[in-house]
């Protein structure tokens, strides 16, 4: 599977480390229940999903990758840094 790193270009997925769903946001307000949800709970959609991948063997950028979990089609990738601005 190839991931289109915005800095390096399309690269084999073995260059990356996969973290998981990009949607959850770390709660900043000290709510323990919200933090537990952030740490432990994830949706598991069958379909397009945004995921966090780390280009460990490349530019070391964290990426938000849009990928369909059913057929692995990768439709886009952008730098995670500043994702709030582009979200």
């Amino acid at each position, binding site marked *: 599977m190839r991931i289109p790193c915005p800095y*390096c*270009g399309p690269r084999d997925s073995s260059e990356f480390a996969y973290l998981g769903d990009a949607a959850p946001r770390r709660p900043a307000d000290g709510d323990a229940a919200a933090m537990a949800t952030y740490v432990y709970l994830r949706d598991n959609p069958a379909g397009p999903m945004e995921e966090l991948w780390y280009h460990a063997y490349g530019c*070391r950028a964290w990426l938000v990758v849009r990928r369909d979990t059913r057929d692995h089609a990768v439709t886009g990738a952008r730098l995670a840094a500043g994702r709030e601005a582009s979200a």
Partner: protein
Amino acid sequence: MADLVHRGGYAGLGRRVGSGDGVVAVEQAGLAAATVIARRGKAEAAAARLGGHLGLAVADAAKRAVSPAATVLGTGPGTWLVFGGEDPGFVAGLAAALAGLAAVIDQSDGQAVLHLSGARLPEALEKGVRIDLDPARFTPEDVAVTSIAHIGVTLWKIDAAPTFAVALPRSYAGSFRHWLEASAGPAGLAVVSD
């Protein structure tokens, strides 16, 4: 205690002069090097200042800018790996020039660098490099940070012969030699190092 002798990353692995008919690898030891990382929001300014200090046009991209005195390689967003010559003040000079715009961290000893050339080099590189090195797609202006045989490397082209340069963390030098000898050895490999 005045004489501590400096050794390159491939030292001690044995100078091997094989036929060299296919591939020649020459270590570039003793180069000054630094990682330059732009401050937040200052990538463009850092690129301009870096370029100005070295007399080069530096882009915030996976591109190479080169002069006789320095090679600037884009290795990540707002990040460059910069090689100088053997000038001991090179890194300090970079740090001073980029003060306030970027962090400059000495990597002169962290990377071991080889120059690779030879008629059979493209065939040997195919056995470990998972990116397209076709001359139309990877030029002397390009830089790739990738992996070869599970070793993280920085790869760039010196000229269209093709001559490639590969930098990798010095602790992996022995493992990289093993890959190089297995992949280029059958074609006739010569490795030149201290």
